[in-house]
């Protein structure tokens, strides 16, 4: 575990040693703010909750998280540091988990910096802060799910643009799997698959959280989802590290 944390710490410092951290956090906060206040009609609704904020959160993540993950492995290959990292006494699993934890911690920091929304809504009214907490927890889990997908896509290719596009595409498919357009089509053609996509849709799971429900089955869903993609990531790194 200490090896994993050492790798995670190095990674996290790496974000802040380069403009990546600043650019990501600024763009994230600006986008979330603009979408919540303008498109979301935060003030016009006159309801003391953060629903407009949470409605847009997964979509902002969908765009920005693959931008973080695209470099995770692609950059290591480009610099050749993957050869250094994986010839130190670390297992591939530790390297994969370390990188993931660092990226997740980074997203958590970005998410924490949205605290002015919470303060604002508490000054303007008396919201249910339990619901807000559940929403944040859900947001963090969505970030984790997207990160695990993006990291696996980054291990698949040494080209960062391809890693980004694949990351967005795969995250999008999982995000909207329950959308009527996807689901109705599948229910008619392959009924079994329609049932499956309804269960794996990230947005549906997230909506439970924004309603203030922290259900065990949703937590298990996210843990399984992230675990699966981290495992896939480990296999991909092992197979393609020296390509």
């Amino acid at each position, binding site marked *: 575990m*200490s*090896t994993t944390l*050492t*790798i995670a710490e*190095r990674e996290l*410092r*790496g974000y802040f*040693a*380069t403009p990546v951290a600043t650019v990501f956090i600024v763009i994230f906060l600006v986008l979330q703010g603009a979408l919540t206040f303008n498109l979301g009609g935060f003030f016009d609704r006159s309801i003391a909750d953060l629903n407009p904020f949470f409605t847009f959160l997964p979509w902002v993540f969908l765009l920005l998280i693959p931008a973080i993950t695209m470099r995770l492995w692609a950059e290591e290959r480009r*610099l*050749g*540091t993957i*050869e*250094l990292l*994986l*010839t*130190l*006494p*670390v*297992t591939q699993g530790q390297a994969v988990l370390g990188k993931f934890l660092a990226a997740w911690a980074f997203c958590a920091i970005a998410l924490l910096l949205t605290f002015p929304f919470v303060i604002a809504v508490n000054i303007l009214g008396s919201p249910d802060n339990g619901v807000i907490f559940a929403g944040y927890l859900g947001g963090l889990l969505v970030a984790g799910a997207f990160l695990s997908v993006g990291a696996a896509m980054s291990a698949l290719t040494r080209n960062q643009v391809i890693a980004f596009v694949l990351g967005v595409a795969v995250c999008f498919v999982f995000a909207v799997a329950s959308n009527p357009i996807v689901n109705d089509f599948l229910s008619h053609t392959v009924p079994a698959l329609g049932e499956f996509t309804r269960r794996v849709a990230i947005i549906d799971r997230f909506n439970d959280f924004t309603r203030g429900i922290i259900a065990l089955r949703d937590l298990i869903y996210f843990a399984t989802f992230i675990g699966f993609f981290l495992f896939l990531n480990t296999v991909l790194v092992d197979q393609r*590290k*020296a390509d």
Partner: protein
Amino acid sequence: MANRALDSADGPIGGAGLPASIEIEGLTKRFGSFTAVDGVSFQVRRGEVLGFLGPNGAGKSTTMRMLAGFMIPTAGTARIMGYDVQTHSVAARRLLGFLPEGSPTYPEMTVEGFLRFCARIRGYAGAELDDRVNHALGLTTLRGVALQPVETLSKGFKRRVGLAQALLHDPPVLVLDEPTDGLDPNQKHEVRGLIQRMAPDKAIVISTHILEEVDAVCSRAIIIAGGRIVADATPKALQEQHPSGKLEEVFRALTMEAAA
């Protein structure tokens, strides 16, 4: 494990009955239909400095990557101090100091930060970690740039950062892929001196295409061409293979033959 190492103690050269620190048997790597390394076998004992020579593309780096457990061989095995680099990879890598080709490092980290990271991965902490990092900085004369980000350093300094990382834990086995590439003559001299000083206690493999280096530091040389070993002898014995007595001529004769 220990038994296996002892069994194969009867290598071709040197070693007063010591088990070999590096054992490579029938190592082969194919990329599609192209065979980069073809049935390479050799052993290196403590006290030996093996010069691994060959033209570009002969399979030097591929062999070293397989020895470091980074690349998975198509066939064959490699062992470091008796540990198979595939099945006991973490144990093998603890005993290995490896300088990858081109000496890759994280550009945004400072020299000291990078070495502290490597030391922590290798399980050092507290005062011992400080000692290790300090010692490695001293060995490679990097103290003056310890707080500079690696990306601001010249090629020669970067190479020494990679070297410092490989020497950090005083490993019994050192595998250095072109350790003097990009260094100026003074730095080359320093690194060769460093390798010579460490030689008695370690098994060292260095790859190079600078033939004078073999004369200067190696106790033994292997020439590889087209993925196969074409010569394995002391530099002196190799020189005697050609009337001119020049290693360069021997190298050319052997590697051109294999390429033809």
